[in-house]
């Protein structure tokens, strides 16, 4: 294709009515400056010959096998998945209530949404035992309580940080199989503990600035008698 212009060309020939231009062919020839292009090129229009093609790559061998019926090619799919749309009530620093899993009922601080769509969340660990963790938006109630999260740097966390570590397969001989496995518990690497501490340090300071907030985050949420979830304001 010819090189694209920066702006679409406005016609130099205004319409009198649709289908009838103001200027004749000869006038347009002059207006477009075709005489100047010709003059520049020595009385002829410049000719651009097609670039000589490199000799066709060594002729492909005819395939050994042709399928009896035509094989259909699947349609091209260029779809790129986007992270889930975040609910408007969930902003960085919101206190969320976890609804399922090991930390069911815990109130937790929301940090950011990861590229996979999951929410990055932290207890803080010292307050309620919830570490830096990923959580699905659907299993969460967003409260209207917000914590000041300005001192926290969450740039380095993404889904790869939370990937499971792959252990090299160890071959077990019969004798070893019956012995108790020595390295049963996987220890948390020290740098993850450091990350948790650094994220929580400024968070805990801003939490302690609000009265009762620390006790609030330490307590679990539960439905009591008379509470109607569809009438409650969170």
């Amino acid at each position: 294709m010819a090189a694209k212009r920066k702006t679409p060309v406005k016609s130099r020939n205004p319409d009198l009515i649709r289908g009838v231009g103001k200027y004749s062919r000869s006038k347009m020839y002059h207006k477009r400056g075709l005489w100047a292009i010709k003059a520049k090129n020595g009385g002829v229009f410049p000719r651009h010959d097609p670039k000589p093609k490199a000799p066709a790559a060594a002729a492909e061998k005819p395939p050994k096998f042709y399928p009896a019926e035509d094989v259909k090619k699947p349609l091209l799919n260029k779809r790129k998945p986007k992270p889930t749309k975040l609910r408007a009530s969930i902003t960085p620093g919101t206190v969320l209530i976890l609804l399922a899993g090991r930390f069911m009922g815990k109130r937790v601080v929301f940090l950011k949404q990861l590229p996979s769509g999951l929410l990055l969340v932290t207890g803080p660990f010292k307050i309620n035992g919830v570490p830096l963790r990923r959580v699905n938006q659907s299993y969460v109630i967003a409260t209207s309580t917000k914590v000041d999260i300005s001192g926290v740097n969450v740039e380095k966390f993404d889904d790869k940080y939370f990937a499971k570590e792959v252990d090299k397969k160890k071959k077990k001989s019969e004798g070893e199989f019956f012995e108790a496995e020595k390295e049963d518990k996987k220890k948390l690497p020290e740098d993850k503990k450091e990350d948790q501490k650094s994220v929580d340090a400024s968070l805990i300071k801003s939490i302690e600035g609000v009265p009762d907030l620390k006790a609030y985050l330490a307590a679990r949420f539960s439905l009591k008698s008379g509470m109607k979830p569809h009438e409650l304001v969170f």
Partner: protein
Amino acid sequence: MPFKRYVEIGRVALVNYGKDYGKLVVIVDVVDQNRALVDAPDMVRGQMNFKRLQLTDFKIDIPRVPKKKTLIEAMEKADVKNKWENSSWGKKLIVQKKRASLNDFDRFKIMLAKIKKAGVVRQELAKLKKENAS
């Protein structure tokens, strides 16, 4: 003795049902046996069935179907809003509204306050019991 609150022009009523639920309105005219013409400073004057209204103790002094301006002046003079909010009925409604709008954090703080108050009361009671026993 039998009835104390009458439907009359100027009677302040509470809307019990419908779009204007919870509003204080003034009965401005009676349409027929079942309906009244009703008006409030922040709504368009319209008819309402008596079944949607709960009469209150308050009455203001207005002519039949007053202009909006007259109505508002009469309501200011009788100080309906403040009298309503200081009445026990009005206070109950305000508390109900506040309870319904409580945040999860607010409910938690209230729980802590209740426990604290109960602790103080129990201490006093124990003190009084001891004094009585001795």
